């Protein structure tokens, strides 16, 4: 494919006996956002490390920006930017000096460099803290500075390894805005995340990684069709009550151990009222009532038969 920014086929990587990536195939078109979704320990960071030349693959081929990562390392590095899971910033330097360091290492001429630094500080709302050491920055500010540093070299393909893990909701939204702006400029984004919502918000295509294999790949909508939708969870005190309840609702999933019943529902007030009325009609009362919207756990349960916890 001529317009593919990242093309991976049969990628394998093991550390000793532990197979971390077990035959990964994926293709990311230029100018799109691709999200690799998976729990901790699924192999996301290893995949990023191989794709960004930091680690050698044991097998398979990886082409980034049209270049082979194994044989054309320099050409790949010239085209990419990476913002890792742990903010790669220099704590003893100020925000501005961190950006200046990137300008100097990229060999940008002095006047243009000044302009770039000022622009990035402005864009990432770091002007006020530009002169203070990064050691005083909050987690959100570090992530922003980290991404700003990555942008100094104007990379066309950017790898973001869990860019919002550990951020508060507001910083997360700011980060999403920044990522959207980058895509609007035609940059290709390879994003790893643990959050289904994040992949849903940002990605054109999503792949689910579980124990080194891609268990699903498609658009966020395609993926969501494969997982249980919003449902109501009812918990009863006796098996008899559970039996009765299981008979009066359709399409239910029962959990005998927890004496719980999952009833599909859109969680609107009308359908909730109908559900409660029906319980009343049969003189049933649930001990516990909760509304569930699908999350990563549900995706995993549906796609792999185990939860994210088990994947670790």
């Amino acid at each position: 494919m001529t317009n593919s920014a990242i093309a991976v086929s049969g990628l394998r990587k093991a550390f000793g006996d532990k197979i971390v990536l077990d035959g990964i195939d994926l293709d990311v078109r230029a100018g799109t956002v691709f999200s690799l979704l998976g729990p901790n320990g699924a192999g996301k960071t290893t995949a990023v490390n191989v794709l960004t030349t930091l680690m050698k693959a044991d097998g398979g081929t990886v082409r980034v920006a049209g270049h082979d990562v194994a044989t054309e390392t320099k050409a790949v590095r010239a085209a990419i930017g990476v913002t890792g899971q742990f903010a790669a910033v220099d704590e003893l330097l100020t925000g501005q000096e961190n950006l200046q360091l990137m300008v100097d290492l990229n060999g940008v001429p002095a006047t243009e460099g000044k302009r770039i630094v000022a622009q990035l500080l402005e864009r990432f709302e770091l002007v006020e803290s530009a002169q203070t050491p990064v050691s005083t920055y909050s987690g959100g500010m570090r992530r922003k500075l980290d991404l700003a540093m990555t942008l100094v070299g104007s990379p066309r393909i950017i790898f973001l390894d869990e860019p919002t893990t550990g951020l508060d909701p507001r910083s997360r939204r700011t980060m999403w805005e920044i990522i959207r702006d980058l895509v609007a400029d035609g940059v290709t984004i390879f994003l790893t995340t643990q959050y289904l919502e994040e992949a849903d918000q940002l990605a054109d295509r999503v792949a689910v990684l579980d124990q080194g294999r891609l268990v699903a790949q498609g658009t966020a909508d395609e993926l969501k069709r494969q997982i249980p939708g919003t449902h109501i969870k009812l918990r009863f005190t006796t098996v008899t009550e559970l039996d009765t309840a299981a008979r009066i609702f359709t399409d239910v999933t029962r959990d005998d151990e927890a004496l719980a019943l999952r009833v599909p529902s859109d969680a609107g007030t009308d359908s909730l009222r109908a559900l409660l009325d029906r319980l009343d009609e049969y003189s049933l009362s649930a001990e516990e009532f909760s509304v569930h919207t699908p999350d990563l756990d549900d995706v995993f349960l549906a796609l792999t038969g185990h939860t994210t916890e088990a994947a670790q």
Partner: protein
Amino acid sequence: MITQRMSTKSHSIVMFRRNFAHITRNPTSVFNAVLMPIVILLMFVYMFGDAFDVGVDYIDYATPGLILLAVCYGLSGVAVSVSSDMTKGIVNRFKVMDVSRGAVLTGHVVASVLTNLIAIAALIGVAFLIGFNPSASLLEWLGVVGMVVLLGLATGWFTVALGMAAKSVETAGMAAVPLVMLPFFSSAIVPAEMMGQGLRQFAEYQPFTPIIETLRGLLNGAASSGDAIAAVAWCVGIGLVGYLWASLTFNKRA
């Protein structure tokens, strides 16, 4: 889009500036590298100096030893800063930017040597104020500078290797302690002949003694070529081991 990629040499200069900024901004490393040797100089000259009979003015005896001590004290921060580069994400950023291994490590070593030179200039300045009276010619002074730079490079590379090999920043801080202690078990403070059995042999044969004796000889205008050859050989050896060890560890870890 930046098409022109920089050479290792210019990357080294950028990295050196970064590492030097680190040293100057960390009060502990400034204190250890520059003030500590001066404090020790004053302590030994005024507190203990009269108690040692070394045959010459004690300040003239101790200053060359403290020059070496100053180099070693400057190293304590180097292992830590190498280790934090490796354990925090920034080394990966440098790798993806095609900053070479050589540039990352050389930056640390050169910044360390420059700190040594500043610390030693300050130390010698204070020594002069309290009566240091060397008889070295210009050429011999150049010899002193050369010896200091060689020693700084050798121990600098060795310390960079220690920092690379350390699993955490905390262990890296400990790794440099033996280097800071070693000068006390040499002829830096008192002549080896005045030490007890065992310790004396150790002091006579450990690498720092010929280096100190070379500095002492140069400053007193009576350099011995035997000491000088041994000193240069030790420095080249230590430096080479450090360089190879650091380079190998870098490839393995990063």
